[in-house]
């Protein structure tokens, strides 16, 4: 079995990796956001997997409880929970990353309770005061986890786990750097598959796969038949098919600012500090999502730096319908791109891929604009 096949096997919500983990008698917890430190969960010998809702096609319960004007991701999650699609989970960990996710947590507890649930409070900006608060929150979370699952998370274990996760981050960054080439050896579609696999494969095994995959990809011939180099910016996107549509039309995605992409792994945890302090610092100060109220300028700067470094021709924004965070953020980022005369395309989408025809037309037009520049 080639590496990419192994990786693709790990993409479904429940897969063999998770089944094998559970067969060893170990627990699995679903978590909702890239602001939740997986390291603490994994250090408790629990597999943290990012909550997704693939396979959801309609949301009657989600509409009724979350209302039809909340984002379709949260409605889909409530729907799948009601349909027992998350029954393999031993619990969920949420946070106040956005209004919709924090209310999803409430609705899940009332309508489709999990055996274990916990919510972490994450401050809205970075300062010594907020980092100290977040460290306190993480400490509470660690204690709860230890109590609930009757396991001690030692400093050594936490340090070891941080090292493991940092290794993933370093390898992923190496992989991303290959995309700077004029003919990148890896597509955006392949990248998202690797990232998705990473959120359900046990970390040691994921690192092994990543190392091998990196070697193989490095030897591959680069992709040269693209029409434009694209940066993808926006919220949660866990659908390789979505990126596939862009790439099939000639827009090679060479870099991103996405929840599952750079925002997930770009920054390392400082291994020289006390582990909880290091985690608090890293998770609050990482490349932020618009939930962080002091981060817009840094996010804009990151986008502009990536555009230069990865020789981007145009930016595609993808934002989930009814997401206030990303609509307002993209409104500001668009102004920045206009100032610098960088073309962009703003796509609104539902969590479940729909309206592919209309999307193709818009991407096709965008490609023509980029080609004629």
């Amino acid at each position, binding site marked *: 079995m080639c590496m990419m096949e192994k990786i693709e096997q790990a993409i479904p919500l429940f897969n063999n990796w998770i089944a094998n983990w559970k067969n060893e008698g170990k627990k699995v917890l679903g978590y909702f956001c890239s602001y939740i430190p997986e390291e603490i969960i994994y250090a408790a010998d629990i597999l943290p997997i990012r909550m997704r809702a693939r396979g959801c096609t309609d949301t009657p319960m989600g509409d009724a409880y979350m*209302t039809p004007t909340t984002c379709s991701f949260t409605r889909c999650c409530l729907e799948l929970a009601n349909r027992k699609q998350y029954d393999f989970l031993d619990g969920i960990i949420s946070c106040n990353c956005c209004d919709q996710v924090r209310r999803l947590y409430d609705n899940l507890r009332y309508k489709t309770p999990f055996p274990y649930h916990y919510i972490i409070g994450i401050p809205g900006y970075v300062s010594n005061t907020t980092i100290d608060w977040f460290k306190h929150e993480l400490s509470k979370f660690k204690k709860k986890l230890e109590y609930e699952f009757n396991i001690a998370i030692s400093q050594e274990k936490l340090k070891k786990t941080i090292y493991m996760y940092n290794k993933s981050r370093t390898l992923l960054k190496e992989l991303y750097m290959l995309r700077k080439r004029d003919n990148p050896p890896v597509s955006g579609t392949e990248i998202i598959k690797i990232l998705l696999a990473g959120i359900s494969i046990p970390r040691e095994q994921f690192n092994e796969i990543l190392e091998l995959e990196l070697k193989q990809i490095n030897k591959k011939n680069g992709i040269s038949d693209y029409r434009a180099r694209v940066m993808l910016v926006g919220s949660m996107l866990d659908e390789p098919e979505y990126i596939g549509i862009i790439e099939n039309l000639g827009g090679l995605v060479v870099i991103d600012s996405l929840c599952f992409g750079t925002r997930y792994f770009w920054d390392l945890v400082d291994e020289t500090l006390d582990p909880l302090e290091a985690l608090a610092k890293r998770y609050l100060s990482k490349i932020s999502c618009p939930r962080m109220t002091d981060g817009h300028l840094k996010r804009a700067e990151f986008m502009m730096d990536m555009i230069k470094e990865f020789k981007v021709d145009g930016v595609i924004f993808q934002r989930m319908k009814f997401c206030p965070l990303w609509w307002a953020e993209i409104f500001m980022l668009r102004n920045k791109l206009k100032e610098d005369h960088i073309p962009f395309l703003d796509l609104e989408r539902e969590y479940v891929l729909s309206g592919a025809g209309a999307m193709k037309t818009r991407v096709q037009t965008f490609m023509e604009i980029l080609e004629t520049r």
Partner: protein
Amino acid sequence: MKKLDIEIYNKYKKLGRGNWGKDLSMWKMMYMGILYQRKDEEFTTILELLFNIFLDLPKARKEGKTIIMHPFNYGPEIFHAMNLEPLMQELFSVGLAPLHLNETYIDFSNKIGFGDNPTLCNAQRPLIGSFMQGAAPIPDLLFFLSTPCNSLAMTYQVFENLAKIPAFNMDVPYWAYEQQASEFYDDKTVEYMVKQIKDLISWLEQESKQKLNYENFQQTMKNVNQAREYILEFNELLKTVPCPMPSQAGFGNYLAMVTRGGTDDAVKATKWLRDTAVENIKNGIAGVPDEKIRIAWPYTHVFFDADLLTWLEETFKAVVIMDLLGFYQVLPHDTSTIDKCYESLALGTLDFSMVGTCRGPIEYYIEFLLNYVKDYKIDCVIMPMQFACKHAYAMARVTSEVVREETGIPVLIFGCDPYDSREVTSEAIRTRISEFLTQIVL
């Protein structure tokens, strides 16, 4: 009480004359519109407060005072203590709504690609449209909270970004609900808020070039706590059957605290409301004569329909006890030392209208509503939810189920845009409420 007779009307009309500055032109229009709309009303302390809120802004501008814009869920005590002029941003969208003047700015926000109603709330969005058209008041400083919603925090950032105004954001922590220890906040939370308040003061001192006078601060906090005591008494008095005050009364307390919290004006207004309620009970006067239905309204008013509650009173003899904002329930605190004043300010921030009920898990909103229903002998609950209000709308259904189960009281939930009558019209809202009251409640 004296009527807003021609003499008083002309006095306030005259005070509104003169050039308020280009960015206050809409502010002035709103003042004149409200003055005209209220010309036949009784001239109450609350009306006086309202007029002065509008008049104080151009006055502050003339005096060269630093103007700081802040959101609807933060008391301006510290700004008053530092002799800064607070400007509650949402007064703009709330004030323009009944005049149907929000629509122009909402449409302009749409046109420039800044959101739509179900995504971003129109309590803040008209600010961007009006700014782009040169009609928004331009403050010197901007302050906002991370709560109760992302929409608020994002729109303030967009404004900060467009208008290039120095801004300070305060994080209001989310806290976990524990059944065994259902604490609203712990020492760590209060300490966290106090630290942020001290950071805010340093920032204000730096930006406004004014030092906080601690005597002023302590006096301000004493005023705040005096007003809080009046409000708590007032809230208790509203438990009386029939309710001694009409449906809009509680909102007066909120208005006083969100615009003039910490000043003598707020003490005067809250005392007046308390005294009026006492007097009405003593004289057997009901807010709604022959009261038949007592309604809990755990959300904001439908601001574009200024007559909705009067219609409810006249048509159904129904009294809305208090709306979510008007149900201000911050406990008075010790202000004997400066440290205690900081704590009082922190606790007031955590408990402020809508913050206290919405910054955490759903249990706190449910608990608030269950107590409201039980304590005030409520007959039904009406929740007119703003489509874009994700954090509140997404807890309405579960909350209504719990309320029905535990109290047997019927609940009406409907979506609308309190700031724009075009989404769901006044007629449609009244039809829904009529059907609910006649077919289920009565």
